[in-house]
């Protein structure tokens, strides 16, 4: 089935309405119109899918019946994002206009910091691997990994040379070998040239099967940010020697969500990356997240892209749960992005990019024709520039995977403490105001620093 249960109804009015509904429209509320529009769009998706699979009317009808629950859930549950936006208590947007003016000073400060914290254990084999990673064809565009060597500035995009996560500081020690990372999302392209060799398990939590193939897959992009291998193609993940447990989850119920987490744990995942949220997490799911925490599994959730505070009354998001790491987004300017949701329970920010202000972060797209056409002229259609806390989260998950690689006994509590304690305090030259605990309202504990985090994780090893 098509990807319906992840929020899919844009409500953009792009689809023509059915004539039989037109009389009713004038009496409906805007919300009802939006829901109706969603039904029309989903009906068309379902019909297109069923007609592509079957030729007889009776089989098409059965196929459409099977879609019905999914369509109802998708459209009837769709409005949660609007609710979050309406609950916003503080939407002031960070201006990026003056960022060039403080780059020089930032560069100097960060250069000193990173030099002091870089590990000196680079051995020849590690150096060779780093060299190979940097030789990946599109590494030069992967500013989230190495901004100082990005050539995007020469292409007209403003990239702060410290906007990356200092991954090379970690790669001198590990590239994540021996660690299993799960991504729970809408599926993945298991045949993608830059992913397949690192997919250990593909599991469909909805069906119990192995088919997780999805078009326009969000999960595919997320997985690539973690484990895209060093293979002479495209990009490289943050933790390219880790292995992926790719879990497809579209059913909207708490029970299936819990099943997906259980599967990941039982199959050895030490890190679980979730680039989604409901703004309304259930007690049973929280209980499962606590259980994973106690079992030594670190779970990460994206904070969301509305640029709002999650501390607003009524917002109870997965990313705020005590037992997970809540991740917001930093941008090409080495500061928090305008769209990144924030709040007292969000822990960290990591590159998510901003396609409107700059170019976004470079990740995997679908292979071949179903990939989005590249508008930058820099990459082929198997890759894309995108933005969102969705991508900040797997980038952080990759760092966590490397922490487990150097210290398999590290606990989720230690992971969170290290990530936040070693973070780079970005935005000081703007309106950042880190308190005594090192916390800033919009930037949490700062931007992840892979090198520092991995060094510290190894240092505390018993």
């Amino acid at each position: 089935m098509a990807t319906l249960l992840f929020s899919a109804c844009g409500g953009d009015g792009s689809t023509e309405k059915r004539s039989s509904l037109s009389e009713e429209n004038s009496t409906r509320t805007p919300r009802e119109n939006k829901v109706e529009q969603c039904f029309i769009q989903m009906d068309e998706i379902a019909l297109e899918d069923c007609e592509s699979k079957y030729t007889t009317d009776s089989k098409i009808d059965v196929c459409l019946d099977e879609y019905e629950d999914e369509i109802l859930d998708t459209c009837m549950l769709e409005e949660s994002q609007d609710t979050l936006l309406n609950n916003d208590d503080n939407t002031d947007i960070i201006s990026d206009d003056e960022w060039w003016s403080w780059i020089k000073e930032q560069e100097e400060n960060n250069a000193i910091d990173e030099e002091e914290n870089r590990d000196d254990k680079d051995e020849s084999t590690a150096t060779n691997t780093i060299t190979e990673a940097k030789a990946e064809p599109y590494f030069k565009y992967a500013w989230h990994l190495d901004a100082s060597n990005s050539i995007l500035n020469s292409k007209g995009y403003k990239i702060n040379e410290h906007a990356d996560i200092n991954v090379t500081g970690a790669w001198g020690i590990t590239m994540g070998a021996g660690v299993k990372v799960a991504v729970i999302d809408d599926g993945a392209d298991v045949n993608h040239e830059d992913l397949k060799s690192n997919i250990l398990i593909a599991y469909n939590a909805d069906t119990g099967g192995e088919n997780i193939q999805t078009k326009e897959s969000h999960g595919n992009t997320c997985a690539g940010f973690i484990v895209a291998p060093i293979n002479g193609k495209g990009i490289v993940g943050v933790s390219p020697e880790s292995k992926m447990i790719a879990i497809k989850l579209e059913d909207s119920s708490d029970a299936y969500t819990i099943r997906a987490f259980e599967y990941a744990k039982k199959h050895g995942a030490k890190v679980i990356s979730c680039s989604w949220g409901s703004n309304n997490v259930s007690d049973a799911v929280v209980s499962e997240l606590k259980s994973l925490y106690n079992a030594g599994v670190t779970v990460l959730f994206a904070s969301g892209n509305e640029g709002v505070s999650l501390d607003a009354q009524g917002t109870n998001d997965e990313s705020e749960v005590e037992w997970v790491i809540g991740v917001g987004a930093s941008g090409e300017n080495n500061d928090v992005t305008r769209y990144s949701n924030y709040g007292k329970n969000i822990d960290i920010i990591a590159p998510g990019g901003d396609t409107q202000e700059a170019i976004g972060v470079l990740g995997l797209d679908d292979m071949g024709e179903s990939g989005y056409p590249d508008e930058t002229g820099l990459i082929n259609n198997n890759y894309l520039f995108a933005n969102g806390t969705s991508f900040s989260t797997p980038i952080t998950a990759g760092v966590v995977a490397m922490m487990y690689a150097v210290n398999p006994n590290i606990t989720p509590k230690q992971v969170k403490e290290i990530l936040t304690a070693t973070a780079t305090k970005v935005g000081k030259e703007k309106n950042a105001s880190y308190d005594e605990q090192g916390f800033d309202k919009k930037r949490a504990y700062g931007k992840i620093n892979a090198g520092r985090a991995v060094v510290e994780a190894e240092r505390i090893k018993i």
Partner: protein
Amino acid sequence: MKKQIIISFLGLTLLINAGEFYYSNGNKVELSKVEVSQTIGSRMLNSRTKYYKTATGKSIGVRDDILVECVANKDCKEVLSKYEITEISQLTDSIYIIKISSDKNVFEFAQKLYGDNNIKIAHPNLRKIRNRR
């Protein structure tokens, strides 16, 4: 006349039981009916899922199943055995999913379970949208 009939017809909304609630983190989550157009309402008549809104505007769907976790060191199957449950299945070491017969109100049943001192969590198996981020 035709116009009046149409307006009356369109004014009909699907009224789902008001005043339902479940417990989350020790607090009551009050739910209200979901009003939908006649077209959608008629389509939902055969749906297994009923849709509600919370006081903060979140949409949820429920069916006839409930998630339950008992307090530590309690045999949850034994605790649940005194209730009229049609099906029970263990999701995790501590979380169970139970089904109740369709003639029972899933909220009332969950509330009753929640009131049991041996039960820590009891709420309908909530259906909600996971927004990609």
